[in-house]
Every structure is written in C-alpha cells, then in structure tokens.
C-alpha cells in the first residue's frame, strides 16, 4: 500500500474517532437537557461519517472492491439524525419544560407540542377521527 493512502485512511479514522468520543463526552459533561441534545446529534454524525469514508477508501483503494454500502449508511444517518433529534427535543418539551419557559411563537397559535393545530377543511378529508379529538378537548 502506498504511504499516502495509509496516511489518508489513518487521518479519517483519527478524525472520526475524535469526534465520536467528543459527542459521547458532551453527553456526560453538559448540564442542561437541551444542551446535551447538541453534542451527540452533531459530533457523532461526523464521527461515523469519518469512519465510513475511511472504510470506503480502504475497500476501494487497498482491496480494489469499490463499494457503495458506506455511502448508503452515511446518507441514512444524515437523513435520520435531524428527525431523531427533533423527536427527542419534543419529548423534552413535553416532559420537562413548560410553555412559559419558551419564547413566544409570534403567531396566533402556540408551539405544536402544547397547542392543537387550527381546524381546517383538510382534516375532514383525510379522515381525521373527530371522536378522539373531541375527547382530547374535553379533557
């Protein structure tokens, strides 16, 4: 193996490893729940991204069997990371925070975790369940 290939793959591996440990370390170090959400969702995507690029380079340049699997995993992680982060943020909003802790939305309706969306005609079309919704309002 050429030396530059060796160094290139090693560099990506080291970068990936460093970002991976920083993400998990942030999870332990930061104090606030919402702050903790930042470290893993960002640092680990680049951490895994670096490792996957290194692996792609290794199989492409050293073993001469170019593969696209890693690209798929990277793409999948980059598409799903915002969604999981958003869901966890919503869980934190619903569980640990109150509407008073948040800034005003500047709109006639509040944030979607606490407030119901405005009623439109479209809801009747897509077969919304009126019985269940009324129950929610009443309680």
């Amino acid at each position, binding site marked *: 193996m050429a030396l530059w290939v060796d160094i290139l793959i090693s560099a990506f591996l080291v970068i990936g490893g460093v970002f991976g440990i*920083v993400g998990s370390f*942030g999870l332990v170090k*930061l104090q606030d729940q919402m702050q903790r959400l*930042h470290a893993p969702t960002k640092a680990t*995507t680049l951490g895994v991204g670096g490792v996957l690029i290194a692996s792609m380079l290794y199989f492409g340049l050293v073993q001469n069997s170019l593969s696209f699997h890693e*690209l798929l995993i990277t793409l999948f992680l980059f598409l799903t990371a915002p969604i999981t982060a958003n869901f966890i943020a919503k869980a934190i909003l619903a569980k640990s925070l109150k509407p008073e802790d948040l*800034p005003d939305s*500047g709109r006639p309706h509040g944030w*979607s975790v606490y407030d119901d969306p405005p009623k439109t005609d479209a809801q009747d079309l897509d077969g919304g369940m009126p019985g269940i919704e009324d129950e929610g309002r009443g309680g």
Partner: protein
Amino acid sequence: MLKRLIPHPILSLVLLAVWLGLVNKITLGNVLLGSFLGLVVPAITAPYWPNQPKVGRPLVVVQYILIVIWDIIVANVQVAMIVLFKPNAKIQSKWVTIPLELTSPEAITVLAGTITLTPGTVTAALSADGGALLVHCLHTEDENAVRDGIKARYEGRLMEIFQ
C-alpha cells in the same frame, strides 16, 4: 400517459440508485430489478403523496447542498470546541424563534433538518399553524444574529428552490 406511468421520476431514480447500492454490484439483472422497483413502488405509494413538491433551479440545489456540507463540518468543529474547552457556567444557551416565510411542508422540513445539522442549533418545534420554528442554540451572545443568519443563508435559497 407517461405521467401516469412514472408519477415521480426523481423518486424512481433514487430507488434505482439505492437498490444498486444495496446489492453493490452493477449487472444487467440488478439494473432491471431496480428499475422494476423504481416503477412499482411510486405507483403503489402514490396515494400517500397527493401533492408533488415543485423543485426548480438544479444549480441552486447543488449550491445549497455544498453550503450545508461545509457548514456541517464547521459546526462540528465549533460544537466540539465548546464541549471540550468551555466551562459549563460560561455556555449561554438560548431559545430562538424563527418566523417562516416558507409555506410548503417539504421546504419547512428541509429547513428544519438543515438547522439541526448545522452550527450549534437544534430545531425543537414548529408552531401549531406552521408559521414559526422554535430553535435551541447551544452557545450564542446575540439571538437576533442567529435568526437573521439562518433566514439569509438557508431560507432565501430554499425560497428560490421551492417556488
């Protein structure tokens, strides 16, 4: 007729590419099977996609993707620096409200995902009527600057793409 047969040409191409990536070998049989999936899956799932988003300006799309990738790398370094070297007491986290000019759900989804992936910000919620985003900022001194930055850097380009 062609539109009935291929309701989502881009989705069909993406499915073919994903299939080829999964089997990891480009042969005639795999291309045929991938094309078959690319034709059948959009046809079956068409009722779930009533409104097809209009995506224009391919050059702006490419520019947007490159900007986001660059920002992800910068964001990772910044967040790593904050996590490693800033004492907890000095980290000023703030909530930022971003009023939206975008209206299509796809555009708002892309904007929310971009905000989560880039510099120290996480999208937490959408207002109930879909007119504003609630964003949590890991460390900032001026929340107005964050809001204006996001609006100028991402939302303006998305407005161009999804018009």
